[in-house]
């Protein structure tokens, strides 16, 4: 495969379970393609060199920085963004609910990245010592909350989820 500068090629991107045919240039970052080609503006862009964490999405089950991936690399990968978290009926994901209860967000700009970064680990969070959990959440800048609300929210999300399961 060879793609020249300025040339657009169609890639199949699986985002939140839907396969999109998207025309992209080779240098277009996944963060830009999600936001501006697919209209999924929940993924935010804070630095574009992988240092802030705002654009974190899940790629094939693992958190990844969308600003450090070219969309053209990702044919066949399963991409999940913040828009996939809430249930189809609109019910917030336990992590989202927990962020709300624990005041884990203020301006909300880093929040989608925080949620996607925490999604693979929140089930383990209740057992993690504070310093270990904070280390697991590091690399993700929040400029508003001072992090306590985020730490509390990630720690409590599994309990909220279990409570919901029990109620069903």
């Amino acid at each position, binding site marked *: 495969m060879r793609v020249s500068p300025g040339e657009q090629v169609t890639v199949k991107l699986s985002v939140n379970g839907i396969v999109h045919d998207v025309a992209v240039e080779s240098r277009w970052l996944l963060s830009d393609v999600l936001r501006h080609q697919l209209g999924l503006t929940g993924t935010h862009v804070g*630095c574009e060199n992988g240092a802030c964490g705002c654009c974190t999405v899940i790629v094939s089950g693992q958190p990844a920085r969308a600003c450090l991936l070219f969309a053209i690399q990702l044919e066949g990968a399963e991409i999940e963004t*913040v828009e996939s978290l809430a249930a189809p009926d609109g019910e917030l994901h336990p992590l989202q609910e927990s962020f709300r209860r624990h*005041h884990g967000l*203020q301006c*909300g*700009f880093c*929040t989608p990245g925080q949620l996607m970064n925490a999604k693979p680990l929140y089930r383990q969070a209740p057992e993690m010592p504070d310093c270990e959990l904070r280390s697991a959440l*590091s690399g993700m*800048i929040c*400029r508003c909350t001072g992090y306590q609300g985020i730490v509390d929210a990630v720690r409590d999300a599994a309990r909220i989820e279990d409570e919901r399961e029990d109620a069903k």
Partner: protein
Amino acid sequence: MTTSFVGSSIQRREDDRLLRGEGTFVDDIAMDNTLHAAFVRSEAAHALITGIDVTRALEIDGVVAVLTYDDLAGTPLAAPLRVSQPHPAIRHARTPYPLARDEVHHVGQPIAMVVARDRYIAEDAAAVVHVDYQHLPVAVDLVGAARGEDGPAHSDMDGNVYASLSEHVGDVDAVLAKAEHVFEYDLRYERAAGTPLEGRGLLATFDELGGRMRLWDSTQAPMMVCHGLAPLLGLEPEQIEVISPDVGGGFGTKAFQLYPEEALVPWAARWLGAPLKWIEDRKEAFVGSNQLRSQVTHVKVAVDGEGHLLALDVRYLHDNGAFCQFGILVPSVTASELSGQYRIPNLRFSFDAVYTNTTQCSPYRGSGQPYATFVVERMMDWVARDLGIDRAEIRRRNFIPPQGMPYDTGLSFPHGNRSVYDSGQYPAQFETLLEAIGYDGFAAEKAAAAAEGRRIGLGLTCYVDVGGTGPYESTKVTVLPDGSVSVVAATSDTGQGHETMYSQLVADQLGVPMERVRVTTGDSRRTQYGFGTWGSRTAAVGGSSAVQAAATVATKAKAIAARLLEVDAGDLELADGAVRVKGAAHVAVPLTELVIPARFGRTSGGESSPGLTAASYWSPSAMIFSSGAHGVVVEIDPETYDLNILRYVIAHDCGKVINPMLVRGQVLGGFAHGIADAFYERRHYDNAGQLLNQNLMGYLVPFASEIPQVEVRHMESSSPVSIHGVKGAGEAGSVPVPTAIASAIEDALGFPIDAMPQSPLTLFELAQRHGR
């Protein structure tokens, strides 16, 4: 009974959309045919521009225009931007041209604007615009610049001092001359910046037929932008719709009038006849968005043998970067708090505000206050040390007592009121802190740690924090035909939860459920006169105006209902969406039924104006001061000089609390900025004026792993100034933190800490110098 929302930790109404990724930040707004801007910025800190070659940029497919200063000739944008906070003390006002004319004064100053089909292409073009520079002397170091040894930063000036101000109360010289003890200290504070995660951003579109400019702006001050923009666009403010949508943090960085891009983007959108978007990238934010914090201070203090403060003389230099669009606001704020929490009968400050060839400065969370706290509170520690008095005891001997409130410091606050403390319980607050941090037992704790080779130290600081600054704020409250309530506030939310806060206040006043209140903030289409969000002012000043407007609406509703029900208005109350007779809830008129009579304007019935609506431009009659005390125990690694915070206690008083959860959020968020200011964040310039850490890998914004847990103790000293007793909470969390950390590091390592921020490197070097 009427319900009360005020005082409850009500969950935020903003959260749902933000959690779903459905917020609307500027870059989330898409318009057809939008063009994209990128800027060519100065690579030199101080130089003459001898040539700009845009040829290669214009050859790139997809480039629409490349504008330089010459292209703006004959337009209002060919002149320097205004000083938005003028002051008679400013002798040499220098502000930037939107695009540099012939001289550039800091790295990052805009020189050319590229407009292209998309941002990638705009950056391709910006990268090949060639600028020739003839380099000029550079001023970076504050002291060197102030003395005229470096620079000048502006080639048409002889030195770099652009304003000087002095003020005094009492006879400082006389007391210094005869006091039992006079001590002198030097202190220094270095550059940082607000660094909101969402950079600045603009989307402008001009409606030629309607003659209206619409500008979505990630700003804390949409009304100021609107009024600042009007003369540049030749439009009336009411023709300019400045909308501040969801804003990804501000911290002062976005409370400005005007950034060059804010003038250029709307102007060019109109000129090009197409929507134009500019989203500041992280590189630009580091050199193009305002910064703050460098000051150098010399203190002379007179005390008696018991440590009572008799006179204080504070001289300082303030580094304002390359320009002074905000005048001398920051150093003046420092001056207004130099009394700290203490009675100081003779007090004098004098400062020189100085230009350097660095990015311009304007308030960042706390504005000039962190310096004031640093100077006063480090001084208290040192006077205690030099007199052999306990650090806590010397503070006790000097506190302004609660019965001394309101307390006039004798100093002025910039642009308005005198620096008079409205209320506070400083001694009790301090004792609360000492108990919580374990002050009395600490000597033993420290000795035990020392026996294990560990170096721990305890730091203390008190502080005052101005909130509720004027001149005024506006809110309009209206009962709509469906009985819901509209609140339109001129302030702009950047994450504080204003929608929730205003809803709580207004719902209580009008006796409606919170979900029946809709809130609009930061939209100049809906209101014109007001300011914005900074200086811990929104809950106190905007909140007071909301309460006042809602109370007026309630009075009107009662007057109309009194006529309809044929009862005395004094017997009525608002509850459950109706006006009803106290004690006889079934005798009631729903608000919906009052809307039409009110609209028909039965003003003869006693209502002052038609409609169930009222606007308030509430203005504080005096200053409002929050206060608090911080205590911290730190451990310093004796080999790496790394900082470990073992415990941190905040005793905090911001008056009446509308929503405890939100206040806690502000305090903890501010605290993290304070930790950053103490040990992590510093903008490092080299002598050539190049910023050495221009990204978030070199500029160390702390992660969750660097911020410790905090214990917060709240007190409530209601403000007699604000209508609802509320003070400010936005900045207090950050203001005292570096001072507390400095105090603790000094206690741990045994040598003076007179500069902030510190780092493992600076502590290593200090330890070497002190032979430790």
